[in-house]
Structure formats: structure tokens, C-alpha cells
């Protein structure tokens, strides 16, 4: 079981969903804080959902306030980076770039992509955590090879 968990995790890294930072978080987990990573992830998804909806509203309004959008995205990027959400982070960067040049169409496109990546990651992580809990105490962070 644990092996399965490890494999899933490995694949997340390999596919680029997660990066080194996630490993850092895992290293913070210990007996005293056995579910730290999951807690952080939960918090992240909750907070980022809020940000996403803010951005969505801002975009729907039609008037592209790039500054504000960029601000939201900066926050979003910050959190995503902190938990190691690699693909999400990439989309954030792209979005900000579009904001910078004032490309509304690009923003919209990227945002769609970003939401998709975000949802995908969420699902995968949920799966992962669930399995991990079932598997019981597992090895903590092992850097992906």
C-alpha cells in the first residue's frame, strides 16, 4: 500500500504537478505534525478557490483591470509556489504576463487553463492523501529521483 502511495506521489512529480517545494513540506511533517502536508493542501485549495472566484468575477465584468488581476494572480502564484503546485504556478506566470501586456484574450485563455490545472491537482492530491492515510504512517519526504 505504501508502495502504491509512493508511486502515485512519484508520478505527480514526474508529471510536473508538484515540484521540490512539496518535498520541503513533507519534510516538515513529523510525528508531532503527521498531517501537515494535507492540512496545508487543504488550506491552499480553500484559499485559492476564493482567489479563483475573485478573478473570475473580475474577468466576467469585462472591464479588464489588469492591475487588479495581476494582484490577485500574484497572491495566487505565491500560494501555489509555496505548496509546490508546479503547473498551476506556470499558468499563473503566464497569466501575469498577459496582464502585463494587457492581453485580455490571453488572460482569459490562460485562466481557463489555470482552473483546469488547479482542479486536476486538487483531485490528484485528494486521491493521494486518501491513499496515504489508508496506508498508514509512511516515509516522509523522499526526494523524487
Amino acid at each position: 500500500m505504501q508502495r502504491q502511495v509512493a508511486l502515485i506521489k512519484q508520478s505527480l512529480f514526474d508529471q510536473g504537478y508538484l515540484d521540490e517545494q512539496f518535498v520541503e513540506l513533507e519534510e516538515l511533517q513529523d510525528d508531532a505534525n503527521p498531517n501537515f502536508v494535507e492540512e496545508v493542501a487543504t488550506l491552499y485549495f480553500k484559499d485559492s478557490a476564493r482567489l479563483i472566484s475573485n478573478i473570475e468575477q473580475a474577468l466576467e465584468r469585462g472591464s479588464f483591470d489588469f492591475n487588479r488581476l495581476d494582484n490577485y494572480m500574484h497572491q495566487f502564484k505565491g500560494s501555489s509556489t509555496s505548496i509546490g503546485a508546479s503547473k498551476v504556478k506556470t499558468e499563473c506566470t503566464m497569466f501575469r504576463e498577459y496582464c502585463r501586456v494587457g492581453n485580455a484574450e490571453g488572460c482569459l485563455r490562460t485562466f481557463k487553463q489555470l482552473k483546469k490545472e488547479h482542479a486536476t491537482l486538487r483531485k490528484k492530491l485528494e486521491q493521494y492523501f486518501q491513499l496515504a492515510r489508508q496506508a498508514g504512517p509512511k516515509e516522509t519526504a523522499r526526494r523524487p529521483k
Partner: protein
Amino acid sequence: MLNPGQGRGPDSGVAGGSSNSDPFPAGLRVLVVDDDPTCLMILERMLRTCLYRVTKCNRAEIALSLLRKNKNGFDIVISDVHMPDMDGFKLLEHVGLEMDLPVIMMSADDSKSVVLKGVTHGAVDYLIKPVRIEALKNIWQHVVRKKRNEWNVSEHSGSVEETGQREDGDNNSSSANNEGSWRSSRKRKEEEVDEQGGDDKEDTSSLKKPRVVWSVELHQQFVAAVNQLGVDKAVPKKILEMMNVPGLTRENVASHLQKYRIYLRRLGGVSQHQGNMNHSFMTGQDPSFGPLSTLNGFDLQALAAAGQLPAQSLAQLQAAGLARPPSLSKPGMSVDQRSIFSFENPKIRHGQMMNSGGGGNKQMNLLHGVPMGMEPRQFAGGGQMRVQQQQQQLSGGRAVGQNVQSSGMMMPVGGGPSMLQQQQVMLSSSVPRRSETSSGSRVLPAAATTQSVVFNNFSSELPRNSFPLANAPGISVSYQEEVNSSDAKGGAGFGNPSYDIFNDYPQQYNNNNDWDLQNIGMVFNSHQDTTASAAFSSSSSTQRTRAEHVQNHHQQQQFPSQSLNHMNGGGSVRVKSERVAETVTCPPATTLFQEQYNQEDLMSALLKQEGLPLVDNEFDFDGYSLDNIPV
């Protein structure tokens, strides 16, 4: 919220591997501020893993109020740059000014401009997100460094011992286990360091005595007494008698005197440079004090400082800028003093144009070279801008120690600008007296008579004797006056080293020491003001020559960029140069430049530069045990 003093963080485990020995840095009290809950959670976890005592906060306002309520409750602050309710840099400035704690900035933004902003505002470090735990493991160094700078008596002496020991953020802080150990170690250190002076050695074994706050008035009294006795002949005992302040001990006076002397010395040396520098800065830059200008001056200074670039080069530069031959200043001042001043000057946040010593010797008029018009202009009209800028900077950067408030920082004083100037003025005028410049700047000991008070324009009534930074509006103004009137204070024109004489604001952080070196050098740095830097440069250059080593020390401390900004609006220029110098020489001053213009600190800083042994360091670095001795 303060964690109860316990040496260890939540995790049991040995901090730093020391069991019996000092568990430092475990128990370091960190306040982390970030609006992103995910990051906040992660940081908290990481910091706890480092065995620090963590307090997290998601709003800057809350953080500030926490800090204000528990003045000595934290050792270091980590803050995000982008926050909805308050810009991280603003928080940085406030903390630097009011609490004088080291602040680390962090952000996902790694663009150079933002990082530079962090530096100029006085952040002791800048972390790029995602933050790794390794980066957090070493943040304690900033606390130590800051304290060290405060205590350093002499550049060489270094509080080598200090490195090992970390001082608690606050001398007065209550004792936690760690604190106890730290404090004692610190005291030990101080003892060693101070010993040089030989005056009374404080009984380090005892807990820190309440620090004496050298308010403006107190300092003025001090200076008056000293002048009456003769700077060279003044002895603590007599000064004490003359001052006749209940509760003040001879040791307090001795220590203060030591610092003062260093300051004076420094002013002497600095004045020249300052003048030159100022000029260049002033002219070169407009009130905006772009970092650029300062950088230029800065570099020079830095070089000078660091490498001890011959002051001449700096001076030359300045001269070029000023189109004046760098005149070294004050004939009256002993060379020593000059150096001190110079050193200090840069430190002085005031950076602003050097303070023309009031009257007297023009020599260094920092601003001499600089067309006075400039200054006044700057200050007056332009100055206003500058001041404003400075103020902004100050305010932005950090609330200059509460004391300084008036100075440059957003001083309510009508003359915000004047503040800056005042500082400078103070610096200059204070040379001989030093105390005067009330303007927050810790004006370097007035030794530099030559320093012309640049701010003549502003001539506000700077309390002459008061140490810089009188927060009171009057003070700020006074800065100028002082400068003008007093005999050329050492070039301290620039942001006087934050002598927190005023300590109007509870200095908690005080560690008075901070202001010493830190203020001096640092102040300047923070300011972007070119003028400040200019002023600074001149002073710094002089300093450099002499107090190179000192500078190193000071610089480190001083570069609290923030403080600088605060200090002098104009001083920024100066500061910058100083900063640069410092950076070059020393690691960026962690201290935000202690806004607190603790006189003691200033003095210590000055003294340190000189390498004079502090007379008594009873205070760990607060210097004076008495707190806020009513004057």
C-alpha cells in the same frame, strides 16, 4: 502574543545542538506577517521546526499593534511584501523606526527593483518565495548582528564573543530561559568590550539595569556640562554633578560620554566629506533622492568605507560634485573626532546635508560645497520635497524610532522637511555639542564644528543640545537651528546618527546600542535621498579615512535603510552613501537604523567606531540603565 519565555520552541529538541550551553537561537521570537494563509502556515511550521517561537499574523496592522503592545516581545519580524492592508515596505519602515527590530522581507517577486527596495528600506534580508527552511534557519544572525553593532565598542574588539551569544532582542525583556542565558552572555560580552574604557565596569552579572534614555533634554544637559568642563577635560563625575539629574549614575554618564566623544571625533572627520558629498548628491539629485544618486555616492562611500578607500577619493568625488575642494574639516576638531563624525555622519541618518556646524567652522560644511541654495532649496522648497520624500521614506521605511519621529520621518512637524534638515543641522551644529541637534539625527558629536549647518534655511530651533531627533516638531526644526547656530558641528549634518537621545518613543527595542552605530550609518542608507547621501558621503568620506574600521561596525548597524529614511529625509542621501560603504564593508546593517535615536546608542556607535572602550556598558547595550530619566 508573546510566548512565555521558554527557551525552546514547541518542539523539544535541542536547539542548535546545545544542551547546557546557550540554546540560542532556539526560542528566537519571530513575528511572521503574510496575508496568504497557506504561506503563513508553512512558514510557521518551518520556524517552529527551527525551534523558534513563532507568532503569525495575517495583517500588517495587527502585526504593528502586536509589536507596539509588546515592545520587547519579539526579536525579528518576517513580512511579506504584498499585503492588502499595508504595503510590506511600509510595515518595514514602521518597525524599523518604532521598534528597531530586524525585518526580513519576502515575496514571490524576485525582481531586482523590489529587492533593492527592500534593501533601501532597511530590510535586513530578502527571501524569495517559496521560502525554504534553510533560509529560515539562519535568520538569527540578523538579530545578533544588530545587537552586535550596537554593542560594539571598537571595531576590532568586536564583540567577537558576541557572535556566539545572541542577545535577546531586548535587553530589558523579561527573561526567558534563553534570555537569561543570552543576557548574561551578552553582558559578559559587554563587559569585555566595555572594559576597555575602564570606567566603571558594569556589574554584568546583574540583570540589565534599566536603560537610561537619553532624551533630548538630558542630552542637552549633558552637552552643556561637557562643554562647560571642556570636552577633553570632562569627566563623568563632574558632568554628573553638573547635570544634577536624580537617578543618573556616573556610569551612565561615562558611557554616554564615551559615545559622545566618539561621535565628536567622527564628526570631525566626516564633515568634510559630507560637505562634498552632499554637494554632489544634492546637486545631482533632486529631492527624489533616487537611489541612483545615492548609489553613486554610496558607492564611493562604500568604497571608502569598505576599502577604506582613501577618503580622498571619496572626497574627490565629492569635491567634484561639489566643486569644492573637500575641506577637511574642522580644524577645531581633532582628527579623531573627525573621523568619528565622519563615520557618524554617514550614519546619521540625517544624511541630509551636513549640518553645518552652526556657526562655526565652515570647514566641512557639508553643504558648503553644495550651494547653500541648494540645500535650502532642497529643504525649503525642494527640501520639502526631499523631506517629504524622506519622510515618506521614513514613514515608509520605518517609523523612525519613535524618537526620531520628528526627524525626517513623517514628522508631523510642520516642517517635515525641516526635520530632515534639522537633523543635518543638528549634526553639524552638534558637533561641538552634539547634543543639540535635537533633530532626531543623532547628530554626531558636534565635534565637527566645521560642519556647516546646511540647513540653515530651516533654521528651526534645533535644540542645541539635544541629541538629534527630537521627535517633537520643535526638535526637528531645531535641527536646523542647531546646525546653524552651533559651531559647526561636525559634519554630522547628515542624519545624525540616531542618537536616540530623544527616546521620546519608548525605545524598547532598545537596545540603545542600536542607535549607535546603526543610527549613524544606517540612517543614511535608508534614505534614498540623495541629499542625504551627499551629506553623508562627505561625512562618510572623512570617516572613512579614519574610522574605517569603525565604519564597518557602524555600517553594519547603521544601515538600516529604514532608519535612514526616517531619519533624515534628507539624510537619506547621506545614509546611502554610508550604506554603501557599509554594505561594502559590512554586511548590510541589519539594523534598521535605529531610529531610536538613543543617544546612547549613538554614542556607543560613535565610540565604537573610535574603538574607544565604552565607558561603561552597563547596559548591554542600552547603555543607560535608567529608563527615561526624567530630565
